[in-house]
């Protein structure tokens, strides 16, 4: 039994309306410049991470966000600082967009004590309580019910804080996704589920993961609002997510959003990505939302000098973060017991 009021009949019609709305609004050039800088910073941080992986400074699994920057940056731009974010192991870009300093992130990847989780969590598990970044999680779908719990806590405490929960389209088949959505709809939780559909779950294309092509349709059976868009324009992402965030904040209603995006690198550093063609990859790189934002800025009269300054300042931030990570000390064994239990160790 679907809830009458809550589903959108045509996500495409819905999308078009908001694209119009976004273009009708006067372009806030400084705001776009701010988002562009965030995307640029993320990409440079990712490139440095990849380099450090090759030289052995970073170990384990490393999942890069390159190509998807506009999703995290645009979505988080629609939040207040006290709103919460939960995501997967592909968490670097999300953490930076939520306000984690680049040096805390890189130091974590380097396994250093000055990292956001003192070098204990690593690339897949970035947490920053001060910025309401509630973690990257490694078990596909496992974080979705947890994110609903974060939203539940806000509602319980009568706070108007919203939770954003990111995941890939690969997570849509697993129980955690369905149980999370089911409860969020039933209990009217203030949460926005953002499926970053980058077309591949590791080496598996969408067509072999799901029986339907439109992920957002999954919302229908739960009587949940949905939205869907192709990520070309970071401002467009922000505008769409803002609608869902307002719905969560004002009406305590969840939304499932599907954002079509693309990752330019392999699933992780060990994946040569042989399952797709160079042509396909090149085509997506042609439509890189970060490049598009840059062009948009220039077209809007943002001076090239200012743009170069902005890029230079991001470069400096990354270089300083690398130096900071290099120079930081490693954690020692004494950290393990107190980070296992609050209070005395239970043996």
């Amino acid at each position: 039994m679907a809830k009458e009021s809550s589903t959108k009949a045509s996500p495409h019609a819905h999308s078009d309306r908001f694209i119009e709305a976004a273009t009708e609004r006067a372009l806030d050039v400084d705001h776009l410049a701010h988002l562009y800088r965030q995307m640029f910073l993320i990409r440079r941080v990712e490139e440095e991470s990849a380099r450090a992986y090759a030289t052995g400074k970073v170990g384990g699994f490393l999942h890069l966000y390159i190509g998807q920057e506009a999703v995290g940056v645009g979505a988080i731009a629609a939040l207040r600082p006290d709103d919460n974010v939960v995501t997967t192991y592909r968490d670097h870009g999300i953490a930076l967009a939520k306000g984690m300093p680049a040096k805390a992130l890189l130091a974590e990847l380097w396994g250093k004590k000055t990292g956001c989780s003192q070098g204990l969590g690593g690339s897949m598990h970035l947490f920053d309580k001060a910025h309401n970044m509630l973690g990257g999680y490694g078990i596909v779908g496992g974080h979705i019910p947890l994110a609903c719990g974060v939203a539940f806590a806000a509602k319980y405490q009568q706070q108007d804080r919203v939770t954003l929960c990111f995941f890939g389209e690969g997570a849509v088949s697993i129980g955690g996704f369905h149980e999370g959505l089911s409860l969020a709809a039933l209990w009217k939780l203030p949460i926005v589920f953002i499926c970053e559909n980058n077309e591949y779950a590791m080496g598996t294309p969408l067509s072999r993961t799901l029986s339907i092509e439109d992920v957002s349709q999954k919302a229908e059976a739960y009587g949940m609002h949905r939205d869907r868009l192709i990520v070309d324009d970071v401002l467009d992402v922000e505008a769409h997510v803002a609608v869902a965030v307002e719905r969560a904040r004002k009406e305590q209603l969840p939304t499932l959003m599907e954002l079509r995006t693309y990752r330019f690198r392999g699933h992780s550093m060990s994946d040569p990505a042989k399952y797709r063609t160079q042509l396909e990859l090149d085509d997506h790189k042609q439509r890189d939302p970060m490049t598009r934002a840059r062009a948009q800025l220039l077209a809007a009269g943002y001076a090239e000098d200012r743009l170069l300054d902005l890029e230079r300042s991001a470069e400096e931030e990354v270089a300083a973060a690398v130096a900071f990570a290099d120079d930081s000390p490693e954690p020692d064994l004494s950290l393990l017991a107190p980070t296992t239990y609050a209070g005395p160790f239970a043996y």
Partner: protein
Amino acid sequence: MSNMRQMRFREALREAMSEEMDRDERVFLMGEEVGHYQGAYKVTEGMLDRFGARRIIDTPIAESGFAGIGIGAAMMGLRPIVEFMTWNFSAVAFDQILNNASKVRQMSGGQFSCPIVFRGPNGSAKQVGSQHSTSMEHFYATIPGLKVVAPAFPADAKGLMKQAIRDDNPVVFIESETLYSVKGDVAEDQDAIEFGHAKIVRTGSAVTLVAYSRMTHVALDAASLLAKEGIDVEVVDLRTLRPLDEETIVRSVQKTHRCIVVHEGWSYGGVGAEIADRVQRLAFDWLEAPILRVAQLDVGMPYNARLEQACIPQPERVRDTVKRLVFRDG
């Protein structure tokens, strides 16, 4: 004597599965990235080409779903091999394995069996962090109705995998990412190896080290370190955890009078605790020292490389534990 071939652990597994698929049409393989991608760790490389998409089945990320499908299919007489990309992800399917696979035979009064193999890499790899480094065999080994297999060498991987596929019960087959490239001799006609037989992989007299899977190699490395100091230890490679070959362990302890269990994963209530219980009951009069365990430190796995290495049993930690035991009254 048949001809020996050098083979990697992953190749031995692949050969065992392929041979069993050749000999039994009911056997099929299912899991994430096992087909088109050729396996996340290349264990199933080439199998899709050879057997086709009907028998080498790529699944979405839905462990509970495809484990359950395997169990239902097994009840109907098929012989599924279900790959978990790593055993960490089997936690999502734990209910299926615990409440369906292990129990359906008894619940049905013996009417239905569940001949299925669950397999994949277990335990830590290298810096893959807290949620990707759990040693799951301890949980599964507590469950009656399951068999749990954990080979250390390619020949055993092949023989035990063949047996696992032929077995009429659900079998948990424990591998390790760090073992996949290990090479070893495998006989050309290596056949199924019966469960429940441990193997003495190094003879010695000072202490019995009991290990399995990757830790057998750590125990052997420790034995080499100790040999340089004139301490001669015996290493028992369990090969199967359930059934457990207590006879071989006890016989060894009767000779050495000391026992240390080496395993990945936590010590609390784990496989080492089970072995300690059996040894103290069955070889009490022969023991000259308490039974010790070398296991993962009693905390989650940290990402930092040095801390991780400190948490995982290393040859040096095994060596030091042996020396503590041997020089106890010296």
